[in-house]
């Protein structure tokens, strides 16, 4: 059982608090999306987990031990932090070979991960000739080198083409299915929604949510019904009587906020208003995320960043009183 445990982790750069008393766990066997606006502390947290930066206070462990305590850490934890970090003048293969040798990883793994990342043809090319997408693939290859139980990826789909995005999505889901711990930071909500099972959301260095994707969307979105009718005027009157508002969504479609399809269906049937279409609208992760982070987004100047972030807004306050 190799989980990541972050416990009361705090990191200050001068007076700026990049990570503020953060506590969460990342469990194996699922993909955990690590979300938050720019400057929320995601990358800092990943660096703290890897022992690259020293925490001001608190701890971060992998499998119960600090990262630096592992004799050959690449065999336990694979990480992609910054695809641009690899030295441009080295060939892809030499870059991976130096990493493999330092952790006594068999050199055939180098060729295996190059193959897996689709880089075999450019293995002997210098990294500076690579596109961002190819560098990203190389960074992912490096993360997989030691066949690790824990995989940390910071914005892995950056610069990837559509095929690459499908590849990385399948890869992450596959790693989780094999029982590995997968933590993936991203700022792309629709993208994250396609691969994450669980979410850890940061805002201003603080934990805003640590919950399953399904619960997160349910808790941070309003209900909405989408309808089409041949008689909007009568539907509007009927709804108004029940305290609902019919809003024009354009294109002959109408929406009702804060209602469920069964309520509207029953109401319309009772009033004899013809409905051509009626459905509950699923809120997207993006909408849920924006609702949560609207007030926590970091627009403040450095120095005020240490001010307490808004606590997560309870979902109920989003819903109009029925």
């Amino acid at each position, binding site marked *: 059982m190799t989980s990541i445990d972050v416990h009361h982790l705090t990191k200050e750069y001068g007076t700026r608090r990049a990570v503020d008393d953060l506590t969460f766990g990342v469990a194996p066997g699922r993909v955990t999306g690590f979300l938050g606006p720019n400057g929320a502390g995601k990358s800092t947290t990943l*660096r703290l987990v*890897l*022992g*690259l*930066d*020293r925490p001001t206070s608190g701890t971060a462990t992998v499998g119960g031990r600090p*990262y*630096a305590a*592992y*004799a*050959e*850490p*690449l065999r336990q934890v694979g*990480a992609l*932090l*910054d695809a*641009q*970090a*690899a*030295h*441009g*003048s*080295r*060939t892809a293969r*030499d*870059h991976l*070979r*130096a*990493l493999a*040798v*330092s*952790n*006594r990883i068999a050199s055939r793994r180098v060729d295996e991960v190059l193959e897996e990342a689709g880089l075999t043809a450019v293995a002997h090319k210098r990294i500076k000739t690579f596109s961002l997408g190819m560098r990203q693939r190389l960074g992912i290859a*490096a993360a997989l080198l030691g066949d690790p139980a824990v995989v940390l990826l910071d914005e892995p789909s950056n610069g990837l083409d559509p095929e690459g995005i499908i590849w990385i999505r399948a890869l992450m889901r596959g790693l989780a299915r094999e029982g590995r711990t997968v933590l993936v930071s991203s700022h792309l909500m629709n993208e994250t929604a396609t691969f994450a099972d669980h979410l850890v959301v940061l805002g201003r260095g603080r934990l805003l949510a640590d919950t399953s994707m399904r619960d997160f969307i349910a808790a941070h979105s309003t209900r909405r019904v989408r309808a089409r009718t041949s008689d909007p005027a009568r539907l509007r009157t009927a709804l108004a009587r029940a305290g609902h508002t019919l809003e024009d969504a354009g294109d002959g479609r109408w929406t009702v906020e804060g209602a469920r399809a069964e309520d509207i269906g029953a109401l319309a049937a009772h009033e004899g208003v013809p409905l051509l279409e009626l459905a509950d609208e699923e809120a997207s992760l993006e909408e849920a995320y924006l609702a949560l982070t609207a007030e926590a987004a970091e627009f403040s100047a450095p120095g005020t960043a240490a001010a307490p972030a808004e606590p997560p807004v309870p979902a109920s306050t989003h819903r109009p009183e029925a």
Partner: protein
Amino acid sequence: MSTTAVLHAEWIKIKSLRGTLLPLLAVFGATLAVTVLAFATVGRAEADNADAEPVFDAFYALNFGQIAALGFGTTAVSSEYVTGALRISLAAVPRRGLFYAAKTAVVGAAALLVGLATSFAAFLAGQAFLGEHAIGLGHPGALRACVGGGLYLALMALLATGLTTLLRSGVAVLSLLIPFLLIVSFVVGDVAGGAAQFLPDRAGQQILHEDPAGALGAWQGLAVTAAWTAAALLAGWWALRRRDA
């Protein structure tokens, strides 16, 4: 972690970077080229001078080789800082003491091997042009100068390694060290006795003299250079251990 594995990885990193490998080869190449050029043209005339110093003069081209040695020691470390590759390196080898010791050892060993080959080759190549003025390795101080010259080049490479780790920038180190060696020490050093003879290059080059003048003997001078290098390496270690990567 396995020390051998980390040493091997550091060697791969050096040898797979043209920018690091070239200065290392240039230590040998530049020294030898300048030696051949100088001795083939003005070698005999110089050797005929009344104030000629056959052992020291044989290592004239080491002034060029040492610039390459500084370049090698600098780029071996600055390659970790230009793109942020240090984070990748430290994620693979999180024990920073081991990482730094391995890098220092590989830089030192490579520079020493190339340095020794360079000083012996330069000495022998130069003498080949001198005819009746030529001296052999049996000449007093000649063998000591050849061995010392190799050590001196290795110490200069390591001085740059320590300083680059401290300053995290190859440009900063080279623009500090090269003018310092070429101008301050080269020009001022000849004039001033006193403190100048304790500068890393002046002190270390005492070993190239058959009969060193001044306060420092041959090995004493090299020891002073070694102290400068040790101080730079310790400063680099202090910085690497303390800083966030």
